[in-house]
């Protein structure tokens, strides 16, 4: 476990970013997600929201009711409490997402990786993934860790329109487009799962720390 010192820095008037380290790793990500959950469950009334990321977490707060100094000290104290190193963050959920592997880039991915399409499918669906963070567009989950045999850089030219529900891969990650947006990942399949619904609570199907497995629909 890293023993690097935690650092707090204001992100404008109403947020504070706590940095946990400088090197991306699964252990660091888990530690940050665990800290995010313990901050959420501490029930500090001025806290509005916690956004965990790869090297840091950011807490948004009501700056009319507290000062930066005060909240930063509180958060550093809470974040410094180390969880057991191998423990999965509490409250994370498991999901099985059915996928029809009919993506427009499936054959191209197979060709570029020297695999057959059915090998790509069995490798992609053959392991579970952890949600690193959500972003890019509402409900878009960046998931790790893709099998190294499937690692490909992003497409050189992003597509102007990727349909909602597209299951895609790029570098060491996989993701699902919740809305029709531009996108540069390789599309290998489609899911009917609703990744984001503004009227649902919570609106995003996945949250940071959740574990996802893809089920092959034939």
């Amino acid at each position, binding site marked *: 476990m890293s023993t690097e010192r935690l650092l707090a820095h204001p992100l404008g008037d109403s947020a504070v970013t706590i940095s946990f380290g400088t090197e991306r790793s699964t252990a660091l990500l888990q530690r940050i997600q665990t800290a995010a959950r313990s901050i959420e469950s501490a029930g500090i009334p001025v806290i509005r929201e916690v956004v965990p990321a790869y090297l840091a977490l950011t807490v948004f707060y009501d700056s009319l009711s507290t000062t930066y100094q005060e909240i930063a000290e509180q958060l550093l104290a809470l974040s410094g409490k180390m969880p057991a190193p191998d423990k999965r963050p509490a409250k994370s959920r498991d999901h099985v997402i059915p996928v029809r592997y009919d993506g427009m880039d499936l054959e191209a991915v197979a060709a570029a990786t020297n695999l057959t399409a059915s090998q790509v499918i069995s490798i992609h669906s053959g392991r579970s993934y952890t949600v690193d963070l959500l972003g890019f567009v*509402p409900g878009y989950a960046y998931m790790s860790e893709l099998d190294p045999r499937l690692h490909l850089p992003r497409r050189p030219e992003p597509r102007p329109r990727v349909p909602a529900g597209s299951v895609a891969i790029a570098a060491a990650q996989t993701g699902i487009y919740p809305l029709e947006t531009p996108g540069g990942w390789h599309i290998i399949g489609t899911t009917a799962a609703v990744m984001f619904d*503004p009227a649902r609570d919570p609106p995003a199907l996945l*949250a940071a720390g959740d574990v996802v497995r893809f089920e092959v629909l034939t």
Partner: protein
Amino acid sequence: MITVVKAPAYLTVQDRGRTYGRAAGVPSGGAMDMFAISAANVIVGNDAGAAGLEWALGGGSIRFERDCAFALAGARVEASLDGKVVAPCTTAHAGAGSVLSVGQFVSGRFLYVAVSGGIDVPILMGSKSTYLPAHFGGYEGRRLKSGDTIPLGPETNPRPEAGLHCAADLMPPYDGGIVHVTSGTNERMFDEAAWSVFTESAYRVTAASDRTGYKLEGSRIGNPVGTLPSEAGCPGTIQVPGDGLPIALMADAPTVGGYPKIAVVSEADLPILAQRRPGESVRFELIGIEQSQRASRRRAADLQAISLLASRGKRT
């Protein structure tokens, strides 16, 4: 109810933005000029967080279908109610059937129209604001069109008297062009030379500017790393991509991003930047977080003062 008689190219429902949703990748959103929408709301007797109209890209007209108080704030425009001139930041009364016409935008970019009772649309993630990129919030998740009828909420407070004015000395100094910033979360990545470039040059807002962000033009700032692992940003974040020309993230700022963040605009001054048109310039001045938070508390106190004035006005 309000009827959109002639829609401008851009007209949406906005309020002070979402209270949650960032962890799910949903931007906080809300009005580009939070002070203007809040001020317009309080002088018509609404809560500062009520929903109003955000209006840009040209004139148009709307019809009030019930008696109400309304006010305009933000961009300076030529406006009239049934032919009579409407003053900025001033409470006006409208009878059912009267038409508010907005003509030329004299200065500024976003006009706000607050109506007593506020606009009544569903609340999603703590807000009635429209998020156009994902087509949700506000009125059917879209810009308003001619012929749309927008529901108003019940008026819970008596209407303040007509003529109640929000004095200029309570408003952000829109014309000054000085925008205060605090240092960003990646400040250490920028050396002294980069900081002097950033704080000593004027930056022009380019045409590549919208609710998501304003691309700025001016002296280039060295970006030593390209991109970093993504972390949270917020409206007002000034990030420096590889080309060295900063981008100020605005109301619909993506929740996370990987460009190094050199600074964040003080909440008190974000309206000044938001109201800058393409071609207009600002200068950034670095201050500490204590000073920045004090400025934002002062703005909140100013709003409170205006709100008090409004509630006194209604008893006279």
